[in-house]
């Protein structure tokens, strides 16, 4: 089909449809409403179902219902609406149901504004709902990467029977870039023999629930969940490095901020400063390996975020005191410019020695 120019929000929607998602329940909120609108138009074309729910809470519980039948289902929102979905997300984890939840993050807290932000990092990586759980979180940096990661999000969801979060920001959702939807390679995935589609007299009733009144039994279930999270940590880490081989300082950034940071790195490199980048693609599981490999030879790390400093805590855990960890961030919908990031590089590295 060749390259097409599309908005990020529309790319998420089309990529989901091409990944076999036929059910979407959502509620519009800026800056991701184009995703909802695209699904409303597109899903009937592929024999799917789009439903605008009365609220985000209703939408996530509709997702729970649909996921229970084993179909590929998605919902999307932006920060305040995503907060409303937390109870349902916790239930999805507890009931081990696969689904993809999109959060196109905007400025917060509270109603905040509609500008780009990454300040839901804690919420998506540390469990925004109640109970002991983690969810795989994928953070694309370009519209082409959205195509790939949306598809992977559905595969991971089915492989581990877990909700998966796709996290972008308002800038990624609103911008246009050329994208190409290639042929999808179908992954080998476990059969959904747990789906509640009726037993037709051929076995015991199937039950999907997160309720377990017996404490020991719930603890056993939690242990099984923890084992699953350990498997995900082992198999689903994704990251990219850029010019880290000879770097004295390594920047850490994800999503669109990684692109702005890359520009700043290129400028610093032109001035002879050896700076590289670690770009986490999976925010959970957080990529520890590139830090373990570099922390004893670099002088320091600089985490750049559209938040007051959230991912930087995971960076510190991964670096574990072996090197300095610095931070630069803007909040409230302000996007850090490449010039500001470059200035931060100069400040931390001590600038250009002549």
């Amino acid at each position, binding site marked *: 089909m060749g*390259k097409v*120019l599309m908005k990020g929000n529309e790319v998420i929607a089309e990529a989901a449809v091409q990944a076999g998602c036929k059910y979407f329940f959502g509620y519009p909120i*800026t*800056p991701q409403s184009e995703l909802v609108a695209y699904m409303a138009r597109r899903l009937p074309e592929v024999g799917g179902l789009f439903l605008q729910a009365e609220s985000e809470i209703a939408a996530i519980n509709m997702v729970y219902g649909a996921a229970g039948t084993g179909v590929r289902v998605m919902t999307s929102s932006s920060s305040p609406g995503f907060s409303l979905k937390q109870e349902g997300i916790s239930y999805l984890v507890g009931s081990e149901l696969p689904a993809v939840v999109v959060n196109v993050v905007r400025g917060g807290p509270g109603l905040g*504004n*509609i*500008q780009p932000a990454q300040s839901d990092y804690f919420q998506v990586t540390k469990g925004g709902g109640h109970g002991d759980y983690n969810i795989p979180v994928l953070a694309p940096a370009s519209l082409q990467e959205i195509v790939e990661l949306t598809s992977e999000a559905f595969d991971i969801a089915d492989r581990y029977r877990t909700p998966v979060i796709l996290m972008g920001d*308002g*800038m990624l959702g*609103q*911008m*246009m*870039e*050329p994208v190409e939807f290639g042929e999808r390679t179908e992954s080998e995935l476990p059969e959904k023999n747990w789906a509640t589609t009726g037993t037709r007299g051929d076995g015991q009733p199937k039950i999907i629930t997160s309720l377990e009144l017996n404490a020991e039994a719930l603890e056993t279930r939690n242990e099984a969940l923890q084992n699953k999270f350990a498997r995900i940590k082992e198999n689903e880490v994704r990251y990219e490095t850029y010019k880290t081989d000879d770097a004295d300082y390594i920047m850490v950034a994800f999503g*669109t901020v990684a*692109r*702005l940071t*890359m*520009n700043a790195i*290129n400028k610093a490199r032109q001035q002879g400063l050896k700076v590289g980048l670690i770009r986490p693609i999976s925010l959970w599981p957080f990529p520890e390996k590139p830090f373990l490999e570099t922390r004893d030879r670099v002088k320091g790390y600089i985490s750049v975020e559209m938040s007051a400093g959230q991912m930087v805590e995971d960076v510190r855990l991964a670096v574990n005191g072996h090197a300095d960890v610095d931070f630069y961030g803007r909040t409230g919908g302000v*996007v850090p*410019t*490449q*010039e500001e990031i470059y200035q931060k590089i100069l400040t931390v590295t001590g600038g250009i020695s002549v």
Partner: protein
Amino acid sequence: MLEETIIAGFGGQGVMSMGQLIAYAGMFEGKAVSWLPSYGPEQRGGTANCAVVVSDEQVGSPLVTYPSTAIVLNNPSFDKFEPLVSPGGLLIINSSLVARVSKRSDIKVIELTATDIANDMGNVRVANMILLGAFIELTRVVSCESVIHSLKKVLSEDKHHLIEVNKQALNKGTSMISVTH
């Protein structure tokens, strides 16, 4: 080649579609492109703008702080972006609607009475295409042919009869530059 352009004006002047046309045209020519709109809660009478990056290499930042070219279609846009054009850059002004005069000597400034010219052509709404034509002639970032090809993508089927007048406006813009500069 790296061209980072900001196009700004009132909502309705076609600044967003100008940017999209450049992005489409760049894509058709095999270049890397990005288009980023300002999508804040803009007030009526305020400015809407978009940033377009066309590059031979992968686009890093879709966000442009210091544009290599700014095309401004109203006074607030002039005030906001004239100081930000990077040294050696280009400022294209729709002087039919912008009453300001740039005092910068480190950039190239082009003033076109685009709205008046469009009026003379019988369609005030193609003022943006006149400015776009001038932009293309001055920067050669994409070709006019690619932009005309892109019009078929940007305009829905029922508006394809408008392609001809847009094309004329585009050519008008390019010819005004090639004659005077």
